[in-house]
């Protein structure tokens, strides 16, 4: 075989990607996503620059936008936390959306049944209502997986529709507000069922709950014996059962916690933003939370800034509509960002090298196989 003289790209595995590489790759992926999306925006005829400027004004560029961005980030923090916790055990909780609705449902049930309680007591009870509702919604797929080996993805996804329809039924029936003449809205909450605002901003105090939840989850996962067990189970289930950790019990516990976090998000949303129950209280926070958690590599801390970024995207959709552009542009951007981030992961774990080689240089040998051999060689 004759050498072709050209250089061929090959992927070589990095044994331990450095922190700098990881940060750099992700930043480049993000910029790349905006650049590629820009090509499509250019095609709208408004100019990519103008669209991005409008999005900036609508989200970070004005006090109103900033407040809206934070308000949209808060539910995303909760749903992303739910996804991240479950993923510690390699469980995909696609049901944060439904757990969010059920959390809102639970909190609302409390708010309507004891409207006259003092504010601190009623809010605390609503928090419990949200947590319990979400936890129950996580328990169902968790127990199915733990005790019957049912894959968790389909049950979590299907339970979303059950939760959404349950809320639909309630706001069209028992909880409907007669004053709205048949609109799917619940009665307004009493004053004490509403989360107070932070200072004289438009941001409600649910933000404290969100940040506290992120910090506590991070602490629990990294500092406690239980968090350690969860990590072992997620990394190597055989080693976990060898060490005597109960996988089914911890699996149920993780799904309870995951659901409870999303449920708390639902409580915060009805109590802090909507001030009543209504249909469509979530524009897909549960699903966007999956993207947020994935992009933050399931870190409870990094997902907070990521939630703010995605909150900004959600909010800037409204600004686009005032320009006469479809707000779905934002969905496209989310998708492009996700694609770039996932593609970027390849370059976190592998580096591209250019090597001289023959044209038919064993094309059937995929890079990871020979790299595995190199790993073993190094380890030996």
């Amino acid at each position, binding site marked *: *075989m004759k*050498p072709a003289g050209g250089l061929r790209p090959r992927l070589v595995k990095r*044994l*331990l990607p450095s922190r700098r590489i990881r940060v750099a790759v992700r930043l480049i992926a993000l910029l790349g996503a905006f650049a590629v999306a820009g090509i499509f925006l250019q095609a709208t005829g408004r100019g990519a620059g103008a669209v991005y400027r409008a999005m900036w004004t609508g989200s970070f560029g004005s006090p109103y936008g900033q407040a809206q961005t934070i308000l949209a980030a808060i539910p995303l923090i909760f749903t992303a936390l739910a996804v991240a916790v479950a993923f510690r055990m390699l469980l995909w909780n696609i049901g944060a959306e439904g757990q969010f609705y059920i959390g809102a449902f639970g909190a609302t049930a409390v708010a309507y049944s004891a409207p006259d309680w003092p504010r601190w007591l009623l809010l605390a009870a609503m928090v419990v209502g949200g947590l319990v509702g979400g936890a129950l919604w996580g328990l169902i797929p968790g127990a199915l997986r733990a005790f019957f080996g049912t894959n968790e993805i389909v049950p979590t996804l299907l339970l979303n529709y059950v939760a959404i329809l349950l809320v639909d039924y309630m706001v069209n029936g028992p909880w409907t507000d007669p004053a709205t003449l048949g609109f799917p809205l619940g009665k307004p909450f009493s004053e004490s069922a509403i989360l107070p605002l932070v200072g004289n901003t438009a941001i409600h105090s649910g933000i404290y709950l969100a940040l506290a939840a992120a910090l506590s989850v991070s602490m629990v996962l990294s*500092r*406690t*014996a*239980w*968090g*350690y*067990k969860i*990590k*072992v189970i997620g*990394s*190597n289930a*055989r*080693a976990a*059962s*060898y*060490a*005597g*950790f*109960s996988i089914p019990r911890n699996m149920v516990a993780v799904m309870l916690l995951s659901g409870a976090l999303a449920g708390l998000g639902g409580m915060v949303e009805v109590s802090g933003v909507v001030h009543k129950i209504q249909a469509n209280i979530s524009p897909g926070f549960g699903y966007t939370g999956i993207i947020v958690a994935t992009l933050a590599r399931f870190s409870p801390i990094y997902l907070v800034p990521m939630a703010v970024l995605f909150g900004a995207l959600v909010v800037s959709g409204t600004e686009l509509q005032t320009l006469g552009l479809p707000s779905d542009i934002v969905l496209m951007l989310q998708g492009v960002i996700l694609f770039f981030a996932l593609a970027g992961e390849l370059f976190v774990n592998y580096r591209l090298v250019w090597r001289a*080689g*023959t044209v*038919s*240089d*064993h094309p059937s*040998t995929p890079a990871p196989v*020979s790299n595995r*051999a*190199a790993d*073993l*060689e*190094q*380890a*030996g």
Partner: protein
Amino acid sequence: MPRGGAPVTSAIELRGIVKRFPGVVANSNIDLELRHGEVHALLGENGAGKSTLMSVLAGIYQPDAGSILIDGEPIALRSPRDAIQAGIAMVHQHFRLVKPFTVAENVLLGARTSWLLSPGRLEAEVADLAQQAGLKASPSARIWQLSVGEQQRVEILKALYRKARVLILDEPTAVLTPQEAEALFVTLRSMAADGRTVVFVSHKLSEVMSVADRITVLRGGKHVGTLETASTDEHRLAHLMVGRDIAFESARAPGEAGEIVLRVDDLHALSDLGLPAVRGASLSVRAGEILGLAGVAGNGQRELAEALAGTRPPTRGRIELYGADLTRASARRRIEAGLAYVPEDRLGTGLVGAMDATANVMLKSLSKHRRGPLLDYRSAARRTKDLVEQFGIKMSSLDAPVRLMSGGNLQKLLLARELSSSPRVVIAAHPTAGLDVGATEAVHELLLEQRASGVGILLISEDLDELLMLSDRIAVMYEGEIAGEVSADDADLERIGLMMGGTGADAPPMAAGGG
């Protein structure tokens, strides 16, 4: 002189091969000459550079420097395909066979043939070669129906079909019974007699001595000598391989076996596929003794060990630890009762590869390293540091994932964790599999120390030399049962080998035929 009687000519010459990996020089300026008609053993510890060198010869790696000559002609082997075309084939330790396919179909895979298949002609061709490869199974048999030994023959058959003149076997006896290994040696010798070159990669001295014409020893990526088998002995080879003498004699001091600490009675357990794997095994281990459990892999040893450790529920029978019934106890309770288990699958079961050494050390002693619900990383890190020093574990840093450690150091870490928990009974499954001589010796010493301090040890191994060296008694497991038991002092290899093959537990060794 090659025993095959073929004329002495160089088939392959490797000159000044250098291969670097980040941070490691795996091969440093290695020369190797392989002759027509010889069985050439490549001997060395783990990490000596054997596999790298052979991967260079098989076209898997490109050397950083040096040249390869075939019949005196320099050649560039840029891919495994180039190597196959040049007549060089490698039989890997892990077979590359498609299990649902037939022998003939596997032989055909990846071979250069016309695109039109003629099954009849192919099978006739394969049947012919199968005889040379010593494969008795039919070419139309499916791979999953074959034993491991037969599958290895299929790999050799593949090499023959591709007209290989140089056959590289990487640790080929690791998966075979002594009888199967003997049969393999006969095949390898006859292939050499046909003028082929056989390269036999191994770290087992006795095998190398019995099959090779010449032996090349590598140490630390360097060539330290090529010797005629006829003019050397195991001690000399061992010396070259590790750079010092190793104790061959049993280091086992005469000991007083105490009371029975582990008693297993008529135990039954299922395999992962739900088939009976342990079928009425009974054994007992006393304090201060090592009970060796011999047997070819897949005869229920793993399932037995897991049933004892509590990760596989027994379907029948009884397990007693110090007289207490633990048959239904959880893995956690058994650990607390003083049962340590060193599983065969280090990274798959014993350790968490993605986590660091400290996290792995506290895996089974979480209760000792916590304050309330919080983990006490500091005390765990201190203990890890102590263990690393005490057990001579080498690692780049305490907080690197352990999957980056070498096999020997992983095993030391695993043993360090298990033995430092002051266990009363230790189940050690293949504790030295894949380890080099130095690490093996260290593991043996650790087990003997435990024995001396009164711990009862069940040692599951396929390495008979190891079992003879360490055990007080040796039991043989065959098809889920204990086929027989012998005292280590009057054990003879052939009898054990026969029991491992399922024949003659009670028959006198002479009368029993060849398995």
